[in-house]
């Protein structure tokens, strides 16, 4: 692969990202601008931004690699990551926007009026956020390594620096424009090369992926093409567990939820989510084709353990020449956009929580947010240097399993069930978080390698999610006196359309509450 074109592509993405970020600097002035773009972003912009933020290293590179290796069963990843948005649309989107909360801990506070649940939610947001930032930095390292022969730590550092500069300059307003741009960049970067790849594949006589040459240690073609046949233990259980984790975990990812606060009202939040569903559906058609083409032209990557690079490797193998280099550079640009956008979103939401729940006593407002952003990026960057050997897919899986076992029950029960109590929520969050966390840590540590125990630990969602729901419900029913005193008013707030003039209570998100205490400079 020609590294000059790829390096130019990465530099261009970084410069454009920073330029749009700088544009945002002139627009954002108040604390509210920094957190949620003052809630004035239109549905189409917002939907592109959500798409841009959501499509991470796992979507751009990971899915094609998984399909190359394991075939039909892996199709559930893109399906689950899209269906997760349908679940979010149906159960969470509008009520969450109407709650008026900035962050997940804000939601816990307005619904349960419990500082303890708020604190536990804050810790979980930071843990899930860091778990998800780590593979973005790792992916950047691998990409820069493949594209330009750079050492593995450099990619993560580049991404962290660009993200930090962009976040520091404009907060979420500029992030929104950056993210929207990056969705379309990612789609183009995957679509245009694919057209050329398919033309060449057709000219080759359309060889079937089933007959593609792969090493003897890889899943053979006739098993690869069938679901439930790739040779793992208990494939049916694993499939259902994966479905549960992805369908329900999406709503619990902190950078996904923070986006909903930028809609003007509940109705706009729903419409935005529907557009996101369309954008994701278009995007997720593509990685599958890359995976299948990889089976024909890049079967050797399976044995060499480089399956994650299949998307980047195909242009030079199929098209070749200068054209192949240019297409590869476009894919590298798309991959970098994926790392940058997901990392920016995660940084903003983790920084929001850190500044509101930890730093606020010492530094408030914009300065506090900026300091928190530095902390939010530095910790996973150091973790990345320390733990370069942990597989990317495992860390991503851990984040989804933990989110599905903690925030999913909190949100679903909190929004739709009056009798949820603070004690119940706390018990459920702790049980779900500890079970899912322990399961995946044990699985990654390699304590078991076959049979039911391995299946249960590698894909824990099928049992940790029901257990977390059950604990939250049973403990809530056992502590009826702990119901929030104003739960009826909160339900009105969550579910009545904005046009209806009713008393919604006077709760304010912590960031606004605290910043309004200080005198504000008059606006010109």
């Amino acid at each position, binding site marked *: 692969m020609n590294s000059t074109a790829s390096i130019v592509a990465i530099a261009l993405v970084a410069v454009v990202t920073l330029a749009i970020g700088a544009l945002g600097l002139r627009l954002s002035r108040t604390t509210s601008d920094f957190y949620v773009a003052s809630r004035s972003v239109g549905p189409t912009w917002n939907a592109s931004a959500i798409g841009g933020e959501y499509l991470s290293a796992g979507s751009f590179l990971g899915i094609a690699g998984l399909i190359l290796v394991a075939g*039909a069963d892996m*199709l*559930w990843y893109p*399906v689950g990551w*899209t*269906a997760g*948005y*349908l*679940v979010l*649309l*149906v*159960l969470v989107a*509008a009520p969450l926007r109407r709650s008026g909360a900035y962050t997940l801990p804000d939601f816990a506070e307005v619904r349960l009026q419990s500082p303890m649940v708020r604190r536990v939610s804050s810790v979980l947001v930071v843990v899930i956020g860091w778990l998800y930032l780590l593979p973005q930095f790792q992916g950047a390292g691998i990409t820069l390594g493949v594209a330009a022969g750079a050492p593995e730590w450099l990619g993560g550092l580049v991404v962290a620096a660009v993200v930090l500069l962009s976040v520091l300059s404009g907060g979420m307003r500029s992030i929104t424009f950056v993210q929207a741009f990056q969705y379309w960049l990612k789609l183009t970067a995957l679509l245009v090369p694919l057209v050329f790849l398919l033309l060449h594949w057709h000219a080759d006589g359309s060889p079937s992926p089933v007959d593609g040459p792969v090493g003897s240690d890889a899943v053979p073609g006739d098993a690869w*093409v*069938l*679901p*439930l*046949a790739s040779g793992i233990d208990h494939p*049916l259980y694993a*499939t*259902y567990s994966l*479905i549960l984790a992805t369908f329900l975990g999406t709503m619990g990812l902190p950078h996904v939820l923070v986006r909903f606060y930028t809609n003007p009202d509940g*109705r706009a939040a*729903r*419409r935005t*989510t*529907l557009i996101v*569903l*369309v954008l994701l*559906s278009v995007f*997720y*058609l593509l990685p*599958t084709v890359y995976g*299948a083409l990889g089976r024909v032209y890049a079967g050797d990557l399976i044995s060499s353990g480089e399956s994650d690079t299949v998307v980047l490797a195909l242009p030079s193998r199929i098209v070749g020449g200068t054209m192949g280099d240019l297409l590869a550079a476009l894919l590298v640009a798309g991959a970098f956009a994926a790392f940058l956008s997901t990392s920016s979103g995660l940084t903003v939401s983790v920084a929001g929580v850190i500044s509101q729940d930890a730093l606020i006593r010492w530094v408030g407002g914009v300065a506090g947010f900026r300091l928190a952003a530095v902390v939010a990026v530095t910790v996973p960057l150091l973790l990345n240097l320390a733990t370069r050997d942990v597989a990317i897919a495992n860390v991503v899986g851990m984040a989804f399993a933990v989110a599905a076992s903690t925030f999913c029950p909190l949100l679903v029960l909190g929004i*739709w069930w009056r009798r949820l109590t603070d004690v119940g929520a706390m018990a459920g969050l702790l049980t779900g978080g500890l079970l899912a966390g322990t399961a995946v840590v044990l699985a990654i540590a390699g304590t078991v390698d076959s049979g039911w125990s391995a299946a249960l630990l590698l894909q824990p969602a099928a049992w940790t999610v029901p257990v977390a729901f059950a604990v939250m419900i049973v403990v809530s029913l056992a502590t009826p006196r702990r119901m929030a005193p104003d739960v*009826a*008013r909160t*339900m*009105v707030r969550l*579910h*009545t*359309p904005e*046009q*209806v*003039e*009713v*008393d919604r209570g006077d709760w304010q998100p912590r960031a606004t509450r605290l910043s309004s205490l200080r005198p504000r400079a008059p606006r010109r």
Partner: protein
Amino acid sequence: MTDRPAPKRVRITSPRTAAARPRRVTVTREIDAQTEVGEVYMRSLLSSQVRLAVMVLGGMALMLGGLPALFALVPAVRGVDVLGIPLPWLLLGGLVYPLLITLGWFFVRQAERTERDFTDLVDRS
């Protein structure tokens, strides 16, 4: 016609202005005061939305969640080719997405309709 008795004399009086007139209580005020009537309105709004959510998510669970079970119970289905593409790949790699979008579109339409009806109901009273 003349043998019909003359209509009874009716005395017309002024309305009973002195008596307490029933005060018009709006639904929004019932909701604010958390009276039983207000609660009935809120519960009916919530239960319509819950019914809709169960319908949409249940539909999705049945159609998508049924696929692995189908593949496991009737393994022959996995090998069926449609237009040269294996059926599981056609379903999971393509047709699932329009289905999800249709479900989402249906949900948004119905949820907005429910809220419009609720707003009309509350405003009319």
